[in-house]
């Protein structure tokens, strides 16, 4: 119980730290194409670690295996790349059609 919760605590901190750094990168990077990269830290490993912590925590808490977090992990894994690719295509298109640099 104690070992499990200590392990879950480490996972939670690491996952949240990755999500934090992802958003910090979103803030700090200079161009749009550079800003695309950091948030994927939060959506891949960050989410994965926090979901693993949630599985460990609830399994210990309820005394039976709780694994439905896998579904959320699968959802994030398959949907994030799709939105990012769509967004990059939209950005490329907008840059091609609006070289005057007007905002929005």
């Amino acid at each position, binding site marked *: *119980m*104690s070992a499990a*919760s*200590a392990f*879950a*605590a*480490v996972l*939670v*901190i690491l*996952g*949240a*730290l990755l*999500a*934090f750094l*992802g*958003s*910090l990168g*979103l*803030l700090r990077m200079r161009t*749009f194409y550079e*800003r*695309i990269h950091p*948030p994927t830290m*939060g*959506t891949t490993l*960050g*989410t994965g670690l*926090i*979901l693993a*912590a*949630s599985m460990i*925590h*609830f399994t210990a*808490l309820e005394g039976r295996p*709780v694994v*439905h*977090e896998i*579904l*959320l992990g699968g*959802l*994030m894994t398959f*949907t*994030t790349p*799709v*939105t*990012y690719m*769509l*967004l990059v*295509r*939209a*950005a490329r*298109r*907008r840059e091609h*059609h*609006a070289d005057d640099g007007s*905002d*929005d």
Partner: protein
Amino acid sequence: MNIFALALGAAQFLLAAAMVFALYRLLRGPRAQDRVLSLDALYVNAMLMVLMFGMRTGTAIYFEAALAIGALGFVSTAALAKFLLRGEVIE
């Protein structure tokens, strides 16, 4: 258990800061694609925050909320990106 509660508090603080960063970029822009990207980061952080609340209270209902946020966030970001792709086409 105490260590875990402490870790949850720290993690929630980190996620709150991450949400503020994403919100700042959302308001700041400069272009629409930056705003959509920030919205995506914001909902992912919000989803993780909801999972944290779930672990804090020990109820499974928060998981359902996180699932709903995840699904709706994907659809709305994809719709916004699609709008940017198609809404401004000069033909």
